């Protein structure tokens, strides 16, 4: 950090006069540096500014969380699982759909942050924190749904490998145990991975705040002063974490898929489920990152500086590629199962398309493949926040539909036709009974938004130091008349 941002700006004073160069600077955050103090002030202002609208929305979210999530969950615990839309043979339903859904969302935080960090994708810089926050908060929602689905949640601690008077160890042969351990590992490591790059920003906030905030930031910043050795340690730690968390990220969703793939059921017992689930998670997760980034940009102060169409552009491309990968895995999974010719699997595949939930299956294909492929090719469209948000939302709807098809719809078909399910009848005809999962999901969305909103007012949502670091490394050089972006190696 020997080069100051101010100095960087002065390297090519004549650039301001050149249209093309001005365009480049307007387009790329990395080429549009602001003085450190000014940028810090921007972030602090975004963090500290709250309007009545903010509190109104936060209050509403808190209400929905308390009533929808915790209220209905408590009701479900006290009454039993009949309050959910589960029956024989559909022993798992919405709760597991939502668990997988939230784990999928949580995936992209780490993916965007760690993978892009490892590959030095520069566009990541302003929104790594936003993505990492999403990981942690979405994982919390996933955990809530796992617990909500248990018949006797008050005994959930029996799944922890702790020696007790019961003298029974958890069953490590069970995919659910693997899942439990993988999610816990992921939660711990992603929280640490969130915290590490937060330290310099917390220190920055500590230096610019007073009162209780200062006390809290002082503790959280762990005494970070910005010395050379501190930066070196931070960078090394981040590097290790970025590499180490990637296998964890791939494993967690692979293991989630094993909950299904390890079972001997037609449609579930599929060897490709691991990567299929990982890609599916990215599909929903990256879309969710785009949605969060767009929302943050639109609602928080000073964010138009940090988040620009170039980021939408990059995220849109990523979404397109992931959608293609998802389509490949979907086709692969379908093809192999169909080709196998097992009669029950055939029935299941037929049921997916022609059963009462067939429209969900088609919806999934449209929103996961057709929409991204038609829209995201176009650079102008994917740079438009409204369009990108809509495509992201649809991709999440599609991925929800995919999990819906894998869990409750596939559970309708088993090897005993007499005990096949009642179609989707239960979702339609038991309305007074099936109310808990929907409010719990809505409540968990509200809880997620609430946590996010509170976090945005408490920690700097933009990793200032990363942006500044990037801006220092970037410069525009001129070859002849052509301005060219160059990136210096900072280490």
């Amino acid at each position, binding site marked *: 950090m020997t080069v100051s941002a101010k100095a960087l700006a002065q390297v090519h004073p004549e650039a301001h006069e050149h249209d093309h160069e001005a365009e480049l600077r307007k387009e790329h955050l990395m080429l549009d540096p602001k003085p450190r103090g000014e940028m810090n002030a921007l972030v602090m202002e975004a963090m500290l500014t709250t309007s009545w609208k903010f509190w109104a929305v936060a209050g509403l979210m808190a209400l929905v969380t308390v009533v929808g999530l915790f209220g209905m969950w408590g009701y479900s615990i006290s009454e039993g699982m009949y309050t959910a839309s589960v029956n024989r043979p559909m022993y798992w339903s919405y709760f597991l759909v939502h668990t997988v859904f939230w784990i999928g969302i949580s995936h992209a935080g780490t993916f965007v942050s760690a993978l892009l960090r490892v590959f030095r994708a520069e566009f990541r810089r302003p929104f790594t924190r936003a993505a990492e926050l999403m990981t942690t908060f979405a994982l919390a929602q996933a955990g809530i749904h796992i617990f909500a689905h248990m018949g006797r949640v008050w005994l959930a601690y029996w799944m922890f490998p702790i020696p007790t008077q019961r003298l029974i160890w958890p069953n490590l042969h069970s995919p659910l145990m693997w899942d439990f351990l993988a999610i816990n590992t992921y939660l711990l490591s992603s929280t640490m991975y969130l915290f590490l790059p937060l330290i310099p920003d917390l220190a920055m906030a500590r230096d610019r705040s007073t009162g209780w905030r200062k006390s809290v930031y002082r503790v959280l910043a762990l005494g970070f002063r910005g010395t050379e050795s501190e930066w070196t340690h931070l960078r090394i730690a981040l590097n290790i974490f970025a590499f180490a968390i990637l296998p964890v990220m791939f494993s967690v969703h692979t293991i989630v898929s094993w909950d299904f793939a390890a079972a001997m059921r037609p449609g579930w017992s599929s060897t490709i489920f691991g990567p299929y689930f990982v890609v599916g998670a990215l599909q929903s997760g990256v879309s969710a990152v785009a949605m969060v980034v767009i929302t943050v940009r639109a609602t928080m102060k000073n964010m138009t500086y940090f988040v620009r169409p170039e980021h939408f552009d990059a995220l849109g491309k990523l979404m397109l590629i992931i959608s293609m990968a998802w389509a490949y895995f979907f086709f692969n999974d379908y093809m192999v199962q169909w080709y196998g010719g097992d009669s029950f699997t055939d029935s299941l595949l*037929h*049921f997916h398309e*022609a*059963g*009462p939930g067939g429209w969900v299956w088609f919806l999934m294909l449209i929103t996961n493949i057709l929409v991204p492929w038609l829209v995201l090719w176009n650079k102008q469209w994917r740079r438009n926040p409204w369009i990108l948000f809509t495509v992201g939302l649809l991709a999440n709807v599609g991925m929800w539909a995919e999990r819906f098809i894998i869990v409750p719809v596939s559970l*309708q078909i088993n090897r*005993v*036709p*007499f*005990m*096949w*399910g*009642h*179609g989707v*009848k239960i979702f339609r*005809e038991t309305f007074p009974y099936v109310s808990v999962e929907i409010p719990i999901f809505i409540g968990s969305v509200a809880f997620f938004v609430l946590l996010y909103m509170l976090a945005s007012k408490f920690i700097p949502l933009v990793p200032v130091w990363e942006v500044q670091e990037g801006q220092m490394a970037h410069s525009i050089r001129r070859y002849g008349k052509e301005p060219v972006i160059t990136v210096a190696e900072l280490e």
Partner: protein
Amino acid sequence: MTDSFTRRDFLKVMGAGAAATVLTGCGPASRYVTREPYTKMPEYTYNGQSTYYATTCRECAAGCGLILRTHQGRAIKAEGNKFHPLNQGKTCARGQATLHGMYNPDRVQFPAQHARGDATLTEMDWDAAIAVVQKALQDPQGTQFLLGTASDHLFDLVTDVCQAVGAPSPLRFGALSMFEARATLGEASRAVFGKPDLLFFDIANADLVISFGANFLETWLSPVAYTRGYAQMRRGDVRGHFVQLEPRLSETAAKADEWYPLLPGAEGLVVSALGKLFAEQKFGVAPAAFEMVDLAAAAEASGLTLEQFERLAALLLRAERPVILPGGAALAQAEGLETAKAILTLNALLDNLGKAGGVFHTPAAPLADSYHRPASAAEISALVKRMNAGEVNTLLVHGVNPLFELPAALGLEAALQKVKTVISFATFPDETALAADYIFPDHHGLESWGYQRVQTGAGQSALSGSQPVVVPYYNTRATADVLIAAAGDALPFKDEVEFLQSKVAALVEAPGGFYSAADLPSFWALFQQYGGWWQNDSSASAPSAAGALEKKLTFHAPEAAHAEGEHEEFSLYVYPSPILAEAGANKPWLQEIADPTTTVMWNSWLEMNPETAHHLGIEDDDVVRVISPAGEVEVSVYRYPAIRPDVVAIPFGQGHTAYGRYAENRGVNPALLFSAETNAAGDLAFGGVKVKIEKTGKKRPLSRLESKMGVYGFGEEH
């Protein structure tokens, strides 16, 4: 069994028996029982030890022997009595659920008075109750008893009471005997064999069973015994062949090798045609009984083909031990008596009378002078007339629920208004009890003394004994004790037990018994211990059908239903629900049991052929209005793949307006659709009812155990 059966011998027998069951003869069966806290436990009760009592099932009139496992004074489980000749250790679903009747939350818990139709009961004490009955008996001419088909000891006692005070003989009735058309079968037996009887059909040893709608695996006569016979037939060295002819595929027909959906009412024609074909091929000439029938017309009228007739006749020719069964639905027709005669005559033609695998006279049960059949609809009709004429001042009802079980068309409900006092001895607040002025609840069958005669199903002469297996749970009193107290000096007994002992005293000396004893107290103990008394050897006798083959039988084609246009009519086929039968609807676990054919639980349904439903534009679960000349009901449709397209079917058993929380307002009672028309034997001719179907536009889903899409396919309409 030897004459001296010691306790040691008994233990040996029990030790060799598969389950180490301790049968106790004198536990809570002491005469007057009081409730004591468990700190003062009786000496025969041990902590953690079960005690087993033999008694008799009262869920239907068959009289199967039960062993009740009791634990700390509570009845835990009903099991079959291995020694009992009728059920030999087995039970049906209703027998298993009998405990849900005893420990039911909706029993009548005390003697009560109430305004007719009002469910709120005003408690009385038993002395006042006895006074009410006493007052009724002081007007013997105006007193009428209406009893159920179980239990027999009460019928015997009431008969004694009526004789002693000079009241008209008691009437007995039960919906199952109506559906089995017992009067018709008995009358046919009298006409063909010269002796009215509930015949015994030895399907166990038959190699060909052709059944005309006899649902002997469900409710017919003695289902547990007949199911055992069926299993024996199938298990034999040569597996018996089974053919069922009835308009819908019943649980019994589902077990048949061949099922022929014939039009209701055409059974007589088919029997005659088979008789004619068989005799012509075997002897070259048809007997007079069957010669009148025109094969082509019979085929036309029954909906079967001539090839099918040939096939059945060929089966009869090849069979060595064929037997033909007369099902209730076949007899409950306008020409039902003729049909019954034709079936018995065909059995005679097949020369199976008194032979293994054939037809027998059931031996008279111990203590029975002759066969007493339950009242026919015509006899009930006569009672209704007397009630309407004001000749009945007091009606005493026990063990039967006529307001529910009888067709509304008989007019009993209106006639009850003419009766000054109606006394019900019901254990449940059923429809009839609520229409009574007093309810003096009897104990539940498992809390009661008594005996039941085995009328059919076993070759041995058997008397099945009951004893209380637990202390009565509520403030109920044995109806027998109430009557004995009310009759006062007219009867020579102090209480029910003394009455029973006076009856079984005749058996102490009887030869050929399963056990014998030197004196009445020992015999009485063994009677309780084994749950009754029976002979070791079969004494079923061969009927004689002299001259029957020469009596001409004529049948007419059943009246065709209007098949076309706006006024399309269907034949209504009503069958007793295999699970609920006449009185099972108040037992929650029976309600939850899936019907064997449709897997529907907790409700009624209308079975309709999918083709018919398609052309009427009716889907599954659509509520339709079923209209007969006598009444109408609204019921959900189950598209049943194995029913004639011109027939619709409703099970009997649901549709209660009272009878406890599990039965009330659930399903429909098809008896509302029956007309009061009877056949020549006086049985209700419910088989000829024609109904119209109207859509209501409503939908009410039926709860099925089966997955509809797994069984019938998804996506496409079946």
